[in-house]
């Protein structure tokens, strides 16, 4: 993009940072922000966790930060939509709200998860606005990190065009380049962050544009799992297309553990209940899953989705038909977590293959 007076705007939109400086950057940033970054636990799992504020604990946590080939167990959705969250507290005749507004730097978000975050933002902002989610995202900076290689063998983002690099929606995006990252600037807030911490960043040399393009193309080529995503959306958009046989067969195989929905970046359903301890109580909400039988069971015991296949149908139609109908975007962002987490080998990519390739694979 060329700016006024022939100034090359693009030159200022990419910076470079040495990988060795990332820890110091995060240490400095954690003074101002609650920093969330992938950290490898001793058991080997990687979680998008908050860095501790205590200096010694922070130093230890920074040793566990991982940014390459990262497969976080769940998406970062729980930063804005915690698995269990207090929405208000009460005692005697008083009730008070408990929203959360802290500034959050989410560092190292996979592009697919970024799509999931933006999708959920839109859902929670839509009338009626969800006070708790919206307050949590009010002051937020997202540093995306493109994937050079698919972190999960079940990744299929290139088919859905949700990765392996983000085209927009990030404040900053890291592009892995040997012992450095190119840092693409997406927003004014991203630029301000760089200015605040300018000692860590420098200007890239040479024909970096071409280098970035090559890195992205190579990353895209590294995805082996390819599905006909657009065709699946078109098929599902047709009201006459009802793959009931698939739903029934998958519905019989599914064990209704709900794991796929917990790891899904765009699953937003929750349950609400009250907890009381020593006269003080709180209303809490926690993640729920549409595949659970109790999800639609009414007080009378009547359940319109008692049949398992109807719950399976809901799952696929919500993501691939109705979300698309309402928002113009698929509710599946092709992270592949549903398949990688499923104990019985069910996943959206397989469903897409079944309906587009007209064959049984589950």
């Amino acid at each position, binding site marked *: 993009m060329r700016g006024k007076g022939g100034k090359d705007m693009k030159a200022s939109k990419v910076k470079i940072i040495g990988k060795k400086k990332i820890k110091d950057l995060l240490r400095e940033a954690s003074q101002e922000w609650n920093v969330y970054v992938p950290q490898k636990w001793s058991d080997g799992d990687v979680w998008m966790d908050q860095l501790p504020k205590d200096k010694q604990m922070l130093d230890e946590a920074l040793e566990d930060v991982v940014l390459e080939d990262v497969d976080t167990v769940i998406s970062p959705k729980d930063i804005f939509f915690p698995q269990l969250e207090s929405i*208000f507290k009460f005692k005697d005749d008083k*009730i008070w709200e408990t929203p959360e507004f802290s500034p959050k730097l989410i560092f190292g978000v996979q592009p697919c998860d970024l799509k999931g975050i933006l999708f959920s933002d839109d859902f*929670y902002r839509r009338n009626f606005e969800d006070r708790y989610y919206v307050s949590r995202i009010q002051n937020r900076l997202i540093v995306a990190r493109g994937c050079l290689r698919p972190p999960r063998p079940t990744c299929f983002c290139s088919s859905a065009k949700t990765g392996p690099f983000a085209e927009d929606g990030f404040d900053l995006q890291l592009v892995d380049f040997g012992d450095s990252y190119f840092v693409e600037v997406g927003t004014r807030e991203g630029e301000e962050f760089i200015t605040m911490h300018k000692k860590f960043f420098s200007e890239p040399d040479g024909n970096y544009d071409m280098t970035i393009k090559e890195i992205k193309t190579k990353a895209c080529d590294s995805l082996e799992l390819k599905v006909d995503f657009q065709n699946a959306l078109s098929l599902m958009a047709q009201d006459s297309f*009802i793959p009931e046989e698939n739903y029934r067969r998958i519905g019989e195989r599914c064990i209704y553990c709900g794991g796929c929905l917990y790891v899904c970046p765009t699953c*937003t359903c929750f349950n*609400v209940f009250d907890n009381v301890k020593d006269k003080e109580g709180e209303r809490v909400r926690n993640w729920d899953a549409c595949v659970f039988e109790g*999800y639609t069971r009414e007080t009378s015991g009547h359940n319109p*989705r008692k049949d398992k296949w109807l719950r399976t149908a809901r799952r696929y139609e919500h993501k691939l038909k109705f979300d698309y109908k309402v928002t113009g975007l698929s509710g599946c962002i092709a992270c592949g977590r549903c398949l990688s987490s499923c104990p019985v080998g069910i996943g959206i990519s397989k469903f897409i293959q079944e309906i587009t390739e007209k064959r049984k694979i589950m």
Partner: protein
Amino acid sequence: MKNEYFPYPAVIEDIKTETTDTKTFRVWFTDKVLADSFDYQQGQFMELSVPGAGEAPISISSSPSRKGFLEFTIRAAGKVTKSIHMLKKGDYIYLRGPYGNSFPFEDIKGKNLYFVVGGIGLAPLRSLINLVMDNRNNFRHIKVLYGARTPDDLCFKDELEQWKKIPDTEVWLTVDKPSAGWGGRVGVVTELWKETHINPENAVSIVCGPPIMIKFAADKLQESGFKDKDIFMTLERYMKCGIGKCGHCNIDDKFICKDGPVFTYEQKKGFRHKEHIF
């Protein structure tokens, strides 16, 4: 930013026992500003809280034409409704809403009306029926066809008697299981078709009750010649948040709490897996 999840206190001003398991609670907000600005439409519901027990969506059973109070007719069925039944006059209850769409009113003026009702389904419909009764000259002939499990399960017994006395207004009752002394009709609500003429001409019908009753009544109305768009029904789903966020009450791209609970038969037929809606 308004917090839609945050409930407001209201005082229970009166409690009326309707049946062995159903009571009508008359409540009003303690905050004067809220009380003065509050408005709702026939068929809408609110989320009622008893802190500690939880929250449940409950239809408003009073008519918006009668100001200065709200009525909820509640059957003690689950944890929250049982806790509400424990409350006494003068106690606080916490409310948010109103939510959902409403029964038609302006659009059905000048029509003959058929209300087909089952059990506690009269609670939301009473809101519309009393609104219609308060504007009686705007409507033609009215028939209320009301079925309940037993004579004891008939709600609003005084009002059923009052409605009968209004000119051009008929109330037909039936029960599944008669008890000693019941001299009235026995059988499900659609059995009333044998007793009274159902004429679809210049008429709309509004159906509310348990899912299975709605299914049979709506089908029967259609057989009687009612157009799909002239049959209004409520759809029921387990519901939590009331504002289209928690997901539970979804059908297709709709949320019953936000886009419903009132739908026409025509809309119901447009749903996917429509044979499994009820």
